[in-house]
C-alpha cells in the first residue's frame, strides 16, 4: 500500500492490521515516533493525520488511506518549527522519550487554538504522559510557541 508521509509517498508491504506506529518505526526507520503503551494511553506515538493528532499505536495502517501522515521528522528539517524553538528556549526535555509526542500534540493544539489558556493546555496534553515530569515547562513552552507563531505571522 501507499502512504503519504512527511510529503513523500512510501510503498510499504504490511498487513492491514499492523499499527501505523510499527510501520513507521520498523518498516520505514522513522524512529522519532515512540512506543510507550500500545493502547492509546500515553501519547508517545502521536502523529498527525491531515493535521489531526492520532495515536499511531492503535491506528491500523489500512485505515490511513490517502490522509497525509506527519511525524516529528516532518515537522521541520532542522528543529526550527516555532514549537521546537520554544521547546529549546524553555529547556523542556529531560530523558526526551515522550517529547516527540508532546510536541506533535502541542502543534495540533496551537493550530486549533493559537492562544491556548492553561486549561486548554491541560485538556489537550493530558493524554501525553511524561514520567520525568516536564509538564511545567511543556506549559511554558506552549505559551512561548504561541507568541513565536504570532511573531512569525
Amino acid at each position, binding site marked *: 500500500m501507499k502512504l503519504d508521509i512527511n510529503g513523500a509517498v512510501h510503498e510499504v508491504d504490511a*498487513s492491514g492490521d*499492523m*499499527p501505523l506506529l*510499527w510501520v513507521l*518505526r*520498523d*518498516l520505514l*526507520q*522513522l*524512529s*522519532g*515516533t*515512540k*512506543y*510507550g*503503551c*500500545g*493502547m492509546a*494511553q*500515553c501519547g*508517545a506515538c502521536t502523529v498527525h493525520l491531515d493535521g489531526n493528532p492520532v495515536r499511531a499505536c492503535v491506528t491500523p495502517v489500512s485505515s490511513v488511506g490517502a490522509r497525509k501522515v506527519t*511525524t*516529528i*521528522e516532518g*515537522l*521541520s528539517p*532542522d*528543529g526550527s518549527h516555532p514549537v*521546537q524553538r520554544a*521547546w*529549546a528556549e524553555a*529547556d*523542556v*526535555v*529531560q*530523558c*526526551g*522519550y*515522550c*517529547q*516527540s509526542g508532546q*510536541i506533535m500534540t502541542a502543534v495540533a493544539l496551537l493550530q486549533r487554538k493559537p492562544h491556548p489558556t492553561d486549561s486548554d*493546555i*491541560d*485538556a489537550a*496534553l*493530558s*493524554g*501525553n*504522559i*511524561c*514520567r*520525568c*515530569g*516536564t*509538564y*511545567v*515547562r*511543556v*506549559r511554558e513552552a506552549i505559551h512561548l510557541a504561541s507568541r513565536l507563531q504570532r511573531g512569525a505571522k
Partner: protein
Amino acid sequence: MTGSRRGFLASAATGTAGLVISFHVPNLVRAAPRAAAPSPPSPNAFLRIASDGSVTVVLAHSEMGQGIWTGLAMLIAEELDCDWSKVRCEHAPAAPVYGHPAMGMQMTGGSSSTRGEFDRYRTVGAMAKELLLRAAAARWKTTPSNLTAANGVITFGGKTLTYGDISGAAMELPPPESVQLKAPKDWKLIGTTVRRLDTPEKITGKAQFGLDVAFPGLRTAVVLRPPAFGTKLVSFDAADALKVPGVEKVVPTANGVAVVARHFWAAKLGRDALRASWSAPEGGGASTEKLLTEFRELARGDGTTVVDTGNVQGALDLAASRCEAWYEVPYLAHATMEPLNCTVKIDGDRCEIWTGTQFQTVDQAVAAHILGTTSDKVTIHTTFLGGGFGRRANPASDFVSEAVIVAQAAGVPVKVVWTREDDMRGGYYRPAYVHRVHVGLDRAGLPQAWHHVVVGQSILGGTPFEKFAVHNGIDGTSVEGIADSPYLDDTRAKHVSLHSPKTPITVLWWRSVGHTHTAFAMESMIDELAHAAGQDPLAYRLALLKGKPRFARALGTAASRAGWGTPAPVGRARGLAVHEAFGSIVAEVAEVSVEGGRIKVHAVTAVVDCGTAVNPLGIEAQVQGSIAFGLSAALHGKLTVEDGKVVESNFHDYPVLRMFEMPRITVHVLRSDGKMGGIGEPATAPIAPAVANAVFALTRQRLRTLPLRLAKEA
C-alpha cells in the same frame, strides 16, 4: 548508617551466579568530594578536541533525563576555557577507566554523577588546557606562563591559535602530574544557567534510545515470561507462533520463550500465538494483600536493631503523653516511558550490546559470564535512556542477560523489546513497607522517646551486593532517613528496628530509594506531633531543628515563600515537609484542595540546599520532575499481586501523574557553602508527606497510607 546503593564498589565481576565484587566507601555522601582518583585521570579518555575546535566530552555516566549530558560537560569546559558552543557529549564505552570515582564500577545512580565526578571532570579539563598551552608554547618557542587562553583561543602577543589548531600536538604530550583547579570565585560557567546540550536531537526525533537501534540483519524478539512470581516453564508449543508471517524462530530463554521476527509486530503476534504451560506458583502464589497483613503482624514486635539509645520502653512509660501511628506504602513500578529493551550481536567470543543501562560494569560481566568470555570482549553501547529511576540499574541484569541468551539461542543479532505490559509485570519493584512509630512526649509536646519498627523487603538482600551492603542484617536502604532524622537529636531514647521478610516478589531501588517511605513516615509523624501539641507545624519543626541550621533555613525559606502563616486561598490548605537525601536538603510546601472527593495539588514551593549548584536550570528541572514522580506515588501508584500475578498492566490501571494534575511549582536553590549533594532524587521524598499534611490541615483526616485516599464522607 549501614551500606546503601551509594555504598558499593565493584571492581571485578564474573557473572550472575558467581559475581565477585569488591566494595568500599560506605557512604558516598561523605566520601565523594574527597574521593580523588588514585592516579591522575587520562584526559584522552574523557575528552577529544578536533581540528575544527569541537570538544567532545566522554561521559562515564548515562543520560536518563537528569542532565549530566550538560552538567558534566560544564565541569570540563569550566577548566578548559573552551568555546561552549562547540561542546558536545557522547556516552563512554564500558571500560574500567570509566568506573565511578567513589564506587569503582561504571554506573549511574544514587544521585551521584555530578558530585562524584566534580573533581575528576574539572581535573580533566584543567589538564587538557595545560597540554594545549604547552603545545602552543612549544610552537611559539616560549613558556606556557606567557600565554593566555579563553573561549578556545590561545593568545601570545598579537598571535593566536585555536584549540583545534594545536589539539593534535597537545594530545601527544604526557599529561601533567597535577593541575591547579580554579577557585570558585573564578568560575565562569559553574553556577550559571545553561540550557541542555541534548535538546536538538530530542526535539527532532533524532535522539537514539535503545528501542531505536537498527542495523541490517537485526531481528526483533518479544519474550513470553512467567505469568506469576515463582513459576517455571514446563513446556511450550511454537507451531502457531511460527505460522505468523514474519516470525522466524522461537527459542527458549532461561525461564521463558522468545519469538524472533522481522519486526516487533510480527514478534508480538507470534508471542500471542504461543502456547505454554507453567508450574503452579510456589506456595500458592504471592498476594500483596496477604503480605501486608503479615508485615503488619511483624511490625507489632521489634525486628533487627538499627539504633538503640536510652531506654525506650522506660521513656515511653514515663512520657506525659504518647502518640502511635502506622504508615504504609505499596509496591511500585518504575514505569519508565521507554519500556525495557536490549540489542545484542554476538560474533565468536565477542559481543556487542546496545541498551540504555545504568549499570554497565554489571551488565558487561553478566554477558561475559553467559557467553563464557571476559568482560573486555563485551562492548556496551549506551544509548539515551528513556527514563531510568533505578529500573535500569539491576544487580540481576535481567533485561540484558535475557537478551544475550536470546541472541545466543537465535544465532542472529536480536533486539528484545518489552511491551508495556511486560515491563509493568516484569518485577523489580519499589518494595512495600509498613512503619509502626510510637512516640513518647514531654509536657511541652516534644519527643522524648521514639520507637520505630520498619517492615519491608531488603533491596540488596539476595543480590550479589548483599554481603557488602547488608550489615548485621540491616539493609541501609530500608531505614535511611529515620535514625539520622534531624528532628531526633534531643530525643534521648530511640529504638529503630527492621524486619526484612523475603517474598517471591523481586524488588529494586526506585527514585530516592528508602527515602520514598521513610520521609513519608517521619514527616507525617512530626506533623501529627505538632498538631497533638497544639502547635503550628512550622514552629514545632523549627523548635526541633534549632541545632540544624541548613534544615531550618530550607524549611523557613520554603514556608515564607509559600505564604505560610497567611490564609490560603478559600478551600485550600498548606502542608510542609523537609528531608535530606543523597546529601541534599529539600523543603516543600504543598497547597491542596479537595474536589469531588479527590485531592488536588495546586502549588508546590520547593527550596533546595544542595551545596554547590552547578547548573541551576537543571536543578530546577530535576526538582520539578522529582515532585511529579513523587506525586504519582502520593496520588496514584499501587502495584498489586494476586495469586502470584501482577494485576496492573498498563497506564489505564496503573495511573501516573498527567498534565492536568501537575501543580504550579516554584523552585528556589539556596546559595550554600554546604557539601555538594545530589539532585536527581532528593526532591521526590518530601512531596507525599507535604500533601498528606496539607490534606490534614484542610480536612482533619490523617492519611497514613499511600496512595492517599480520602474517606468517602470527605
